[in-house]
C-alpha cells in the first residue's frame, strides 16, 4: 500500500498543480491562435477557448463569482453575439481577408518587442508579496463564518466594504462602489437603446402591399 502511495504521488501532484498550468497553456495557445488564424469563425473558436481558460484562471485565483460571470457574460453572451455578427456579415469572398505579409511581419515584430518589454517588467519588479492580505474567501465552499466572494462583491456594489469598513475602529464608510454601479446600470440601459437603434432594420421604402 505504501509503495503504491509513493509511486503514484507524482501523478497526483501533477493533477493537483497541473490543472492550473493546463489553463495557463490553453490561454496562451488559444490567444496566439486567435492572432494567427485567418478565418474569422476559427478566430471566434479560439477566442472561446482563450476566454474560457481565463475563466478557469479566475477560479484558480479564488474569484469564483468572476469566473462564472466571465463564462456567462463573455463566453456565453458576448461571443455568441460576435459569432452571430460573423454569420450576418461573412458572405463568400469576405470570409478570408488576408493581411499583407509586410504588415504581418511588422506587427509581429512590434508585438514581440511589446511582449518582451512587459515580460521583463513582470520578472524584474518585486511585486511586494509582503503587502498581501489573505484572500477574502477561498474559492469553492466556504463555511458560514468565512463568507464568500459573492456576498462581499454584492455588498461592495451596494457601497459597503465588509473587508475594509466593518470591524475596524474609526472606519471611514463609503469606500464601496455604489456610484460606479449605478453609472454602469445607466450605461447598460443607454447601450441597449443605442444598439437597438443602430442595428434596427432600415426600410427605405414601404413593402409592397400584398
Amino acid at each position: 500500500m505504501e509503495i503504491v502511495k509513493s509511486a503514484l504521488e507524482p501523478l497526483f501532484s501533477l493533477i493537483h498543480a497541473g490543472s492550473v498550468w493546463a489553463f495557463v497553456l490553453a490561454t496562451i495557445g488559444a490567444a496566439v491562435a486567435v492572432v494567427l488564424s485567418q478565418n474569422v469563425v476559427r478566430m471566434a473558436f479560439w477566442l472561446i477557448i482563450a476566454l474560457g481558460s481565463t475563466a478557469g484562471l479566475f477560479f484558480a485565483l479564488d474569484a469564483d463569482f468572476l469566473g462564472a460571470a466571465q463564462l456567462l457574460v463573455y463566453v456565453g453572451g458576448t461571443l455568441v453575439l460576435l459569432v452571430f455578427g460573423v454569420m450576418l456579415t461573412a458572405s463568400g469572398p469576405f470570409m478570408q481577408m488576408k493581411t499583407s505579409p509586410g504588415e504581418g511581419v511588422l506587427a509581429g515584430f512590434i508585438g514581440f518587442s511589446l511582449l518582451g518589454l512587459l515580460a521583463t517588467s513582470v520578472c524584474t519588479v518585486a511585486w511586494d508579496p509582503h503587502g498581501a492580505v489573505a484572500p477574502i474567501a477561498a474559492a469553492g465552499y466556504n463555511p458560514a463564518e468565512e463568507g464568500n466572494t459573492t456576498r462581499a462583491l454584492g455588498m461592495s456594489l451596494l457601497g459597503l466594504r465588509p473587508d475594509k469598513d466593518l470591524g475596524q475602529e474609526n472606519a471611514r464608510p463609503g469606500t464601496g462602489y455604489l456610484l460606479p454601479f449605478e453609472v454602469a446600470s445607466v450605461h447598460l440601459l443607454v447601450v441597449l437603446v443605442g444598439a437597438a437603434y443602430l442595428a434596427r432594420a432600415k426600410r427605405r421604402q414601404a413593402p409592397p402591399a400584398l
Partner: protein
Amino acid sequence: MPAVELDVYLFVAAVLFVCGAVCMATKRNAIGVLMGVELVLNGANLNFVAFARYTALGLDGQVIALFVIVLAAAEAAVALAIALSFYNNHLTIDVDRGNELHG
C-alpha cells in the same frame, strides 16, 4: 511541478494583451478587430484579479474586473451594431474600405 504564482498570471495577461493588440492592428475584418479588443480587456482583467489575490489590492481588483466584464459586454453590443450598419452601407466588413472621410 511548481505552483502557478503571480508572475505567471502576469505573463499570461501580457500575452493576452499583446495578442489582442496585434489582432487589432492586423485584422481587416471589423469583427476580428473586436475580438482583439476582447483579448486586451481580458488581459487587463486577469491582471486585476491576480493582484486582487496576491497583493493588498484585495476585493477592489475583483470589483473592477466585474465592471470591465460588464462594460466589455456593452462595448461588444454597440460595436457589433456599428459593424452591422457598416456592412449595410458598404456591403463589406473590411475596415480598410471605410475611408470616405479621407478628405
